[in-house]
């Protein structure tokens, strides 16, 4: 494979400085201390979405004709922004719309769909969710059962989607449904941009270990207009793979964890623990890991910037995240000890209870396939190892 050097032009370095200064100025303690599902936090997210729109940063990775960036390095600027959003832990609300649904519309959507849906996403007015996972189709998405059958001008959908992030807020869902039960697993699936207010949709929120809400979404005889079909009929699985590819670097993750690790290092210094070599080493080991992970993420961006489609390289960025989480959780227990268990608002909670939340978040390791599935993907695509 060709050598990839992670280097930035002076213009990109300048942009990075500008964004960091801006977020540094705007950052408020509430970004780090509020319950992630409380109204106040959600309002902060909305506020930051609007700020990013005002700055022209919100959808700068989109083509200019859809309100996107106008400079030649818009994609790199977007990557820098994404990384710094993670580092400053900026609350934003429109992630799926900006990063996945919007680019999918640009790629597969009809002119009518683009005109209808892109402007409100770019204005932050549409909250999108992704309807892919089902009770019996998690890592194996091609096993999905939710059916959508054509009846005149409508597809009538029946079935359930599970663990849907933003499901309880979204007004639009990128739905994957089986439209040809006779076709092979991957071949009979289609994508729809479904209005969440349609009759027959019910949403049941479920709380996660982190306090985030995900939802189970039931569809009972939901009449989806035929013009909501996104892309080609029965090509949805492949469209879905491409759609998820738009935002695969995951640059915000190592950045967010670096900020969290700095929190822990600060705590260790203030608590007089820094003199313990075991604690310094443990923090140093994870910091080196984060730098390595960051390089893996930037490689994905560099490949995309050159027009390549990262495959296993993007899965590797996922793998680094999944392998980091357990290490970070263990570090928290080792450095902070029993106080790591004290929740926000209680006496003696550490870093206003953030450490307790970090500890719970270290189990958030299942998204887009767990550690085993991710390794399986890399084994096939990165090393060309046989499956059977």
């Amino acid at each position: 494979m060709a050598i990839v050097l992670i280097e930035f032009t002076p213009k990109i370095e300048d942009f990075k400085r500008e964004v960091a200064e801006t977020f540094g100025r705007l950052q408020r303690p509430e970004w780090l201390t509020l319950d992630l599902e409380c109204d106040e936090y959600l309002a902060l997210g909305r506020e930051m979405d609007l700020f990013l729109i005002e700055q022209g940063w919100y959808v700068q990775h989109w083509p200019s004709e859809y309100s996107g960036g106008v400079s030649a390095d818009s994609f790199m600027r977007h990557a820098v922004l994404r990384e710094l959003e993670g580092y400053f832990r900026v609350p934003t609300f429109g992630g799926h719309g900006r990063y996945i649904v919007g680019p999918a519309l640009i790629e597969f959507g009809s002119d009518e769909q683009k005109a209808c849906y892109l402007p409100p996403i770019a204005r932050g007015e549409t909250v999108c969710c992704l309807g892919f996972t089902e009770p019996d189709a998690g890592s194996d998405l091609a096993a999905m059962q939710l059916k959508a059958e054509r009846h005149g001008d409508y597809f009538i959908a029946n079935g359930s989607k599970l663990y849907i992030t933003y499901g309880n807020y979204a007004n639009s869902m990128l739905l994957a449904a089986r439209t040809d039960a006779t076709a092979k697993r991957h071949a009979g699936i289609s994508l729809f941009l479904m209005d969440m207010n349609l009759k027959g949709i019910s949403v049941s929120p479920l709380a996660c270990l982190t306090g985030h809400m995900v939802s189970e979404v039931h569809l009972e005889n939901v009449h989806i207009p035929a013009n909501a079909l996104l892309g080609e009929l029965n090509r949805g699985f492949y469209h879905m793979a491409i759609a998820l590819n738009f935002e695969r670097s995951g640059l915000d993750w190592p950045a967010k964890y670096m900020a969290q690790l700095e929190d822990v290092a600060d705590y260790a210094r203030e608590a007089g623990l820094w003199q313990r070599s075991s604690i310094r080493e443990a923090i140093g080991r994870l910091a080196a890991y984060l730098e390595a992970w960051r390089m893996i993420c930037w490689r994905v961006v560099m490949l995309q910037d050159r027009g390549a489609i990262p495959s296993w390289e993007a899965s590797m960025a996922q793998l680094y995240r999944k392998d980091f989480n357990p290490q970070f959780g263990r570090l928290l227990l080792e450095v902070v000890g029993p106080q790591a268990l004290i929740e926000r608002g209680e006496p003696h909670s550490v870093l206003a209870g953030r450490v307790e939340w970090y500890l719970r978040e270290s189990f958030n390791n299942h998204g887009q396939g767990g550690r085993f599935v991710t390794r399986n993907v890399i084994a096939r695509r990165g090393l060309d190892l046989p499956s059977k």
Partner: protein
Amino acid sequence: MSTDTTTEDTISMVRDAAYAFCTERSRRIGADADTAAKLWSEIAELGWLGVSINEDLGGSAIGLPAAGVIASELGRAGYTRGYAETVAITTALTRAGLQTQPPVAALIRAVATGSIQLTFLRAFTEQTNDLDGQHGLIPDAGAERLGVLRWSQVSGLTLCELDRSERNHTVRTTSRATDLSVRLEPTDRGQMPEVCSLASGSDARLIWDDALMLYRCLAASQLVGTSQAALAVCTDYAKVRTQFGHVIGTYQAVQHALVDILAASDAAELLTFKALSAIDQRAPDQASIAAAATAFTRETAWNCLMKTYDVLGGVGFMEEHPINILTRAVLPVIAGLGSAHECEDSVATHVRRGHWLSQNQETSKP
């Protein structure tokens, strides 16, 4: 596309050349002393010892990322002797501007021509009397002359050139190449004729630290090459070896071990190149990225090596198996990088609020 790939194209060409060179000479690597000397001379002729030396002093000035590529390819071939140390020390001297001093300029010319190898003493940890000097190992790559860089608060930065008798003190080691077990005089016991003073005071310490940082990154590049070579050997084996009725590459446990090696060696490669590029450009974050690259690569090179033995089983333990040759090349490098404790502690010193950003800019978080 908004990134400039000119540098990548250049170092890709260097890598191709280094790969071809190493492939052609792979049988000679690890052979006798005369062959080692010839190999060193050929490396010099290609300009690879002078990557950071200007052309007026006989160098090729192609930059540190290119040196990293060369080190990596040498590592892939199991050649880990002398290159990283020599390039690191020469680069540190030129970065400090010492090449304007005639003795240092002469030394640098000698490096570029391959007539001298520069290195550090890998000091023994066993208790020695300070008055007795320093004992340690030195890898001898076979150049005509061999100089050891040292630093002390009293004597500053010095280069001690070994004489013929000292170069006879060979000792058998895991590397199976020529290693010297030597005792160097205490640095503060006057100036011996063969000792050249390079710098004093705080400058001396800065150059010493710079040389060590450079060495660790280039050594890490060598480890990247060995890990990638080990992965290639194991992957090929996993695709053809059948056990329990199936090719072992179909077993998830084997696949996952190989994926772990790929993930580690890929990240180590990206990170060491990033570090060498940052050092080349004197970026404000050079020290922290170099420390991270060293710590990460040191740990993962060891893990990768161990996993290869898991995959290969008994055949990997055979003396002439390529993995054995790589193992003998890797261990001296890992030992030369210092302990895991030192590497990780070094990274930790850089972790503080806002530092990750302030590496490249002055902004820090509130």
